[in-house]
């Protein structure tokens, strides 16, 4: 019994570390990719090919002075970044990233590569995302500056608007899998049709996947939906007034959210850790591959597409995405009932 607890604890730590690492990697790769897209070098001084750049950044940020506007709401101003960071980390807790494994026989009965196996995991992710709104909103409001306020208002309304499409496209998958547990959903995508097409829901739910991706981008406030921090319009949006560690937390939270979104997408649509050529216990490699692909896609999109106009964003969200998602859900449900599985 003891080793099991140890293993669980280990997994928690591992996930925590992995998320931090992932954030760092993201920062680096984002800069690099951006540079390549813009035909620059990007960071190359710190460490080999500037790989240690993120660490330098962190150090710099930590050693900066932490400022707080006089008129700011003391409590909330402090609370906001912590909240968003926490939410970001917590969301990943229910995301499975690998098949059951005995960790190379270290422990007798296998455990799942997942912090907490909740039978309503999907909804939990959803719920935590909705909480993460507060981080931004409160940050904007508490720092008592008009730019921040505008940024936070925008982000809040934007996230709420896209949460609906997000949830609906997700619900379609739930209908297909017939479960709310991410593990079950992933396992429902085992195997392949005709031997070579993997049973990924992306092939069943192309539209759903598209909507999910777009909504995900909006949820994570990334370009072309990065209104909360639209540099050209409102200095730095909701975190204008933040500096030093609190700012870093927002930064962190943003990237972790991306990772989480990517992980969830992989689990829901791309069959999680299932994939050809690799044994079950190495499934997490497939998982990493898929996540990286999605993340690259995010970065790629950010540096390619211009930002929309705010009203366009809202119009799109309510008048295009939501109806499409609803339609998709209805069609899926009908299909499921028709096929009877």
């Amino acid at each position, binding site marked *: 019994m003891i080793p099991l607890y140890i293993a669980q604890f280990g997994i928690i730590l591992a996930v925590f570390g992995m998320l931090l690492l992932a954030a760092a990697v993201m920062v680096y790769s984002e800069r690099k990719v951006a540079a390549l897209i813009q035909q620059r070098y990007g960071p190359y001084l710190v460490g080999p090919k500037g790989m240690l750049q993120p660490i330098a950044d962190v150090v710099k940020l930590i050693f900066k002075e932490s400022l707080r506007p006089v008129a700011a709401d003391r409590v*909330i101003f402090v609370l906001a970044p912590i909240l968003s960071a926490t939410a970001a980390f917590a969301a990943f807790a229910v995301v499975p990233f690998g098949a059951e494994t005995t960790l190379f026989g270290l422990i007798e009965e296998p455990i799942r590569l997942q912090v907490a196996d909740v039978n*309503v995991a999907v909804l*939990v992710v959803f*719920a935590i995302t*909705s*909480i993460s*709104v*507060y981080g931004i909103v409160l940050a904007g*409001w508490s720092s008592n500056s008009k730019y921040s306020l505008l940024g936070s208002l925008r982000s809040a309304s934007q996230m*709420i608007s896209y949460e609906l499409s997000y949830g609906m496209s997700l619900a379609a998958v739930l209908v297909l899998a017939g479960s709310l547990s991410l593990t079950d959903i992933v396992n429902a995508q085992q195997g392949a049709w005709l031997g070579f097409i993997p049973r990924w829901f992306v092939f069943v739910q192309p539209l759903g996947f598209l909507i999910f991706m777009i909504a995900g981008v909006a949820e994570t406030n990334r370009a072309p939906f990065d209104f909360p921090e639209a540099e050209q319009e409102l200095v730095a949006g909701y975190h204008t007034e933040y500096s030093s560690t609190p700012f870093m937390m927002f930064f962190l939270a943003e990237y972790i959210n991306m990772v989480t979104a990517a992980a969830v997408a992989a689990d829901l649509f791309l069959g999680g850790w299932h994939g050809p050529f690799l044994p079950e216990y190495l499934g997490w490699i497939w998982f990493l591959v898929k996540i990286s692909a999605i993340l690259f896609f995010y970065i790629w999109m950010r540096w390619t597409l211009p930002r929309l106009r705010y009203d366009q964003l809202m119009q799109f969200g309510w008048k295009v995405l939501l109806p499409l998602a609803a339609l998709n859900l209805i069609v899926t449900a009908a299909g499921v009932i028709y096929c009877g599985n």
Partner: protein
Amino acid sequence: MGTELLLFYLFGAIAVAASLLVVLQRNPMHSVLLLIVSFCALAGLYIGLEAPFAAVVQIIIYTGAIMVLFLFVVMLLNAHREDEVDVGARPVRGPLRAGAVLAVVLMAELVWALVRAGGPRDGALSEGAGADAAALQSVRTLGNVLFTDYSLAFEATSILIIVAMVGAVVLAKRES
């Protein structure tokens, strides 16, 4: 004193404290946040009651939607503090204070009534435990009940929502 009871007291304490603060301090923004806290605590209690779905819904809808709405309004009206200067307000504070007192009285009455009715020591919940928890937890059964026994009420609420939506838009629209 099992862990469940421990958790119950923990969450219960949080909920009560948060609610009390919601009521007792002046800054609406803080009230909203504290209310969110108490909601989360309630969600925890729901999990303890083997209603995880209810818990998640509580968070998604209350915390994720309704409270954000409140937050919005607070920001929009930028009501930092409860306005002390009553703009042409009728001084009806006295009776209202009495109302607060009455609330306490009501609380006392309820508690007293419950205690007399067997109070905390009755094992009411335990024989309910006989019902299989899986059925209670599974969203499927919930859905079945919701869409069969309560279908009418469900449709009614959907209409209610539509009406409320339209009404809200009409009311909040600045008449030009």
